[in-house]
């Protein structure tokens, strides 16, 4: 990892520069954020860092990590993070991905689990389940941003009021939407091949889902889990698309009992 003069806070791997937060100690855990961007500063991350050496990259193209000209496919991220594990000689890594990050985690794990000890998918996207005229994943880009924001949460009193965000925060939000779009516009947030490759995942896998997820349903999560040999599905009640935020304690309990 060589820091560069122009962007001193970015990691660099094979010419690709990206933000990489490291914290805590213990067995390594790679945490892959979802469509809303980096979660490195979220309170649940501090809890995870009490037990794990956290590696939390910001995906290239999302706010904080520039988009390389040649990046346009979910595999670009999957290979980047497999390379990251290689570059640091990490072993027995728990790879945990939220939503869009769960898709990356699954794409990594179908390629090789040589350095991956466990996989945790949290309300992950990435596979196609229903017929061709039925979306599995809500087309958030066809919804008013405020409506899409409401769908993220089960408890509507938790929906954040974004009206007072700063201009810089809105720019960051726009960058994160760009990030999802680069990799997930078409096919929409899935890889048509992935479902038939999930059998290759050799590492123990936990699939965590908000039972009331309205962006991508818990039934989709059950299907996802059923395609991964030996995977365990846990549904969290009273919970939308972000268990780590909406039901943090339950989320941490499941992660801890699975990954230590």
């Amino acid at each position: 990892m060589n820091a560069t003069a122009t962007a001193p806070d970015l990691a660099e791997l094979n010419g690709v520069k990206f933000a990489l937060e490291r914290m805590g100690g213990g067995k390594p855990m790679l945490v892959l954020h979802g469509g809303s961007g980096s979660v490195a500063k979220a309170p649940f991350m501090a809890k995870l860092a009490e037990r794990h050496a956290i590696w939390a990259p910001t995906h290239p193209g999302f706010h904080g990590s520039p988009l390389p000209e040649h990046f346009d496919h979910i595999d670009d991220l999957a290979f980047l993070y497999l390379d990251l594990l290689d570059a640091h000689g990490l072993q027995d890594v728990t790879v945990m991905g939220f939503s869009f990050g769960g898709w990356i985690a699954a794409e990594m794990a179908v390629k090789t689990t040589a350095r991956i000890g466990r996989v945790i998918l949290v309300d992950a996207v990435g596979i196609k389940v229903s017929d061709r005229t039925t979306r599995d994943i809500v087309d958030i880009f066809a919804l008013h941003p405020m409506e899409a924001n409401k769908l993220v949460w089960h408890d509507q009193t938790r929906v954040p009021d974004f009206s007072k965000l700063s201009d810089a925060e809105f720019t960051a939000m726009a960058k994160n939407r760009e990030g999802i779009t680069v990799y997930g516009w078409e096919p929409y947030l899935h890889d048509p091949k992935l479902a038939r490759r999930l059998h290759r995942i050799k590492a123990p896998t936990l699939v965590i889902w908000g039972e009331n997820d309205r962006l991508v349903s818990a039934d989709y999560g059950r299907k996802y889990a059923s395609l991964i040999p030996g995977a365990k599905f846990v549904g969290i009640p009273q919970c939308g698309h972000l268990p780590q935020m909406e039901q943090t304690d339950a989320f941490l309990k499941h992660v801890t009992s699975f990954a230590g």
Partner: protein
Amino acid sequence: MQAWYFSEGAYHYLPEESSYNSIRVSLPNAIYDPVKGADLYHRYLDEWCYADEIGLNIMTNEHHQTATNLIPAVPLIAAILARETKKVRILILGNPLANRRQPVRVAEEMAMIDVISRGRLDVGFVRGVPFEVSAMNSNPMRMSQRLWEAYELIMKAWTTHDGPFSWEGQFFHHRQVNIWPRPYQQPHPPVWITVGSPPNAAQVARLKHNAATFLSGYNVTKLIFDGYRKGWREAGHPGSGSHKLAYAALVYVGDTDAEGEAGIQELKWYNDSNKVPPQFRNPPGYFPAEAAGNVLKGAFGGQVGVDGLGRTPPPKTVEGLIQQGFAFGGNPDTVFKQIKKFYDTVGGFGHLLIMGQAGHLDHERTVKGMKRFVDHVWPRLKDELNEFRQAAE
């Protein structure tokens, strides 16, 4: 002559605006009556043919899934006009290249229309508007890069005459490219590109293509046109380059000022009927993140700022539209003076794109406005304003 009559071919028989949340993308087509639609197509074709009769060039374009424009495939309407008209030039402005999956197909379509029209085609290339990334299922990221790669592939397809070449680019792959027919005009039809910023305009100037801007008003137009002239100068091209610049405005010429302004009142349907919610106006990556963030801020109830060029939405009143250079309307002398003032303020341009029909402006008033322009305004523009003369030559 280089004044162009333009109509969007709108379907204006719409329900009360409050009954729908978007005129684009999601408006159910049950609202569209194909019988009325047929009458409208023929009426609009008649108007373009009338332009041919009176010597006013023709401009057409395409849009998708919208009542504002019923031409989802501009080569179709242009091909009809290539056959139906005899004299004037036909400008397509333009082919939405970032939304077209096969640039070679675009090269073929344009070559065919150019041949049928015996070399009367001007070919415009545009990126495609934000609303249409859904309609075309086009990724809104990297649209400019796709536009330019498609442009390069089309230019190569038009100008390669010794058998096939292959293309394995970042966005497009094509084997055995060898188009039949090739263009009538040599080496290729005149090329136009729409521009939205000074650097963008400079890029088009370096290539010596025509650059057009739509309803951008006095200040923004001047910035963009100056950007073009700077690019033109820095590339070492002769002259100022201004004769290559085009401006599109609502234009209506009446016998009296009141009649001209009443025409603008109808034409401004083009601006006023554009009800589109933020999710369709602002797909990720279409605008720079700062500008996109600004739209998100508005969507979440925050106070929206202006963009980097100081661009503001068109005013709602006829008076405001005329004052800010979005519309030219009045009696012939008034319209001449309005255009001349705009021309002088923005540093000159060579092509006037006349948005001459919209909304409820009926056939009779549409063609009367066109005729008055040709008889009483255009001769003075051509005689008294250099760049128009140069473009006309």
